[in-house]
């Protein structure tokens, strides 16, 4: 029988939880005291991956083949000397997201990094190749820039489960890009996005996708929590449609989760606009749509409804069937076992949470 696990990457290490008898129980901590901006499980080979940011000592990549009991530090990917930003050599700031390749390419792994690099491994993470075609995209110099961070970064990488050469990624700030040939060439996919911070809100590039995800059962359905609203596409990003609430809370935020089986269902954790970046009305809710974004329902049971300032970073919300979980910047961790309708706390005193990811073993 398989077990469900939860990885929680925080400012002070990576926490491991396991679902036992219907409740999430703490197992252990990896990388005590060290930032873990991202962690995930690779089901193709039962491997855990962790982005480990030492601050003083730099950004590292670790791999575990025993569910996080022991870790192996791998060679850190290197930007080529020819990669420049504003005439300065580009150097690795952050491994922001780690994404396993397709089921039929078991040794392929993608890293999305700051300042805007995509690294690809075809040997299970032992070595990485810098993706030049994306770096050389003519839009990069003019339209990629930092926002919350000093540099642009690749924050989401989506691999189409029906065709792993079909990649879609998000650059924050830069926009959505798609490759149909495994990364050999890239095209923008930002039609329909309106970015009020741009001189031309409908520009081809320069948008700020906070996170994108797909419905695995129908991967042409993509969801995007953008800086300027929530968007959905039913044609793999060729055209985006805004599905934000006109008068409700579901509009601004960072993460978004898509249902594995139903392309009409998604969840967001709304926040107050980019002017203040706090919880809406000092309270937390999770909003769910069941009709492709035409309407949203907010759920608050079990979530703080007063004196709450929590916001949820883009990788700190995840779902696996009826289970959902998110962690906040102020160290609260919540789980739901009923599709987001009610929530229970796993604790209130965690470090700031950067990443929450489920897996099964």
């Amino acid at each position, binding site marked *: 029988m398989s077990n469900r696990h939860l990885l929680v990457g925080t400012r002070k290490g990576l926490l491991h939880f396991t679902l036992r008898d219907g409740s999430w129980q703490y197992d252990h901590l990896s990388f005590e005291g060290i930032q873990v901006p991202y962690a995930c499980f690779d089901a193709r080979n039962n491997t855990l991956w962790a982005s480990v940011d030492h601050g*003083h000592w*730099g950004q590292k990549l670790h791999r575990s083949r025993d569910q996080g009991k022991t870790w192996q530090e791998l060679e850190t990917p290197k930007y080529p000397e020819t990669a420049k930003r504003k005439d300065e050599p*580009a150097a690795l700031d952050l491994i922001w997201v780690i994404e396993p390749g397709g089921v039929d390419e078991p040794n392929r792994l993608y890293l999305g990094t700051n300042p805007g690099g995509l690294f690809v491994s075809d040997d299970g993470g032992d070595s990485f190749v810098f993706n030049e075609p994306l770096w050389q995209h003519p839009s990069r110099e003019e339209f990629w820039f930092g926002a919350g961070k000093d540099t642009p970064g690749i924050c989401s990488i989506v691999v189409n489960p029906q065709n792993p050469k079909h990649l879609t990624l998000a650059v924050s700030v830069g926009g959505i890009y798609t490759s149909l040939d495994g990364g050999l060439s890239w095209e923008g996919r930002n039609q329909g996005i309106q970015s009020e911070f741009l001189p031309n809100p409908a520009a081809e590039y320069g948008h700020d996708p906070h996170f994108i995800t797909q419905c695995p059962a129908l991967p042409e359905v993509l969801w995007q929590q953008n800086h300027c609203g929530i968007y959905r596409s039913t044609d793999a990003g060729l055209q985006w449609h805004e599905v934000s609430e006109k008068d409700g809370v579901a509009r601004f935020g960072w993460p978004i989760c898509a249902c594995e089986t139903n392309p009409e269902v998604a969840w967001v954790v709304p926040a107050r606009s980019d002017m203040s970046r706090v919880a809406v009305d000092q309270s937390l809710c999770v909003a769910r749509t069941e009709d492709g974004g035409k309407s949203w329902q907010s759920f608050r049971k079990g979530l703080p409804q007063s004196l709450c300032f929590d916001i949820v970073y883009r990788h700190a919300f995840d779902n696996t069937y009826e289970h959902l979980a998110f962690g906040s910047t102020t160290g609260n961790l919540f789980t739901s076992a009923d599709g987001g309708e009610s929530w229970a706390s796993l604790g209130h005193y965690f470090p700031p949470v950067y990443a929450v990811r489920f897996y099964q073993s």
Partner: protein
Amino acid sequence: MAFVEFTRNLKRFFPDLEPTEVSADTVAALVAALDQRLPKLASYLVDDQGRLRQHVNIFVDEVMVRDRVGLSDPLTPQSKVFIVQALSGG
């Protein structure tokens, strides 16, 4: 042979790290030689372009290195090198 000492904070990641002597005529050569002895140690001290990390300092005879980009500061056989981290944050 230059003599090099380290902040004890690096011992967490390199348990075998001890003060040692290294034959090198620049700081860059010293870092490369240390990485031969303790693989990946250089990546903790310099970024992927070989520049000294922002919050890492290397002192040669109690003077902070001047060339943080190329680490070309010269060493003599009598040099005493100290590798430390800046203190910061919580």
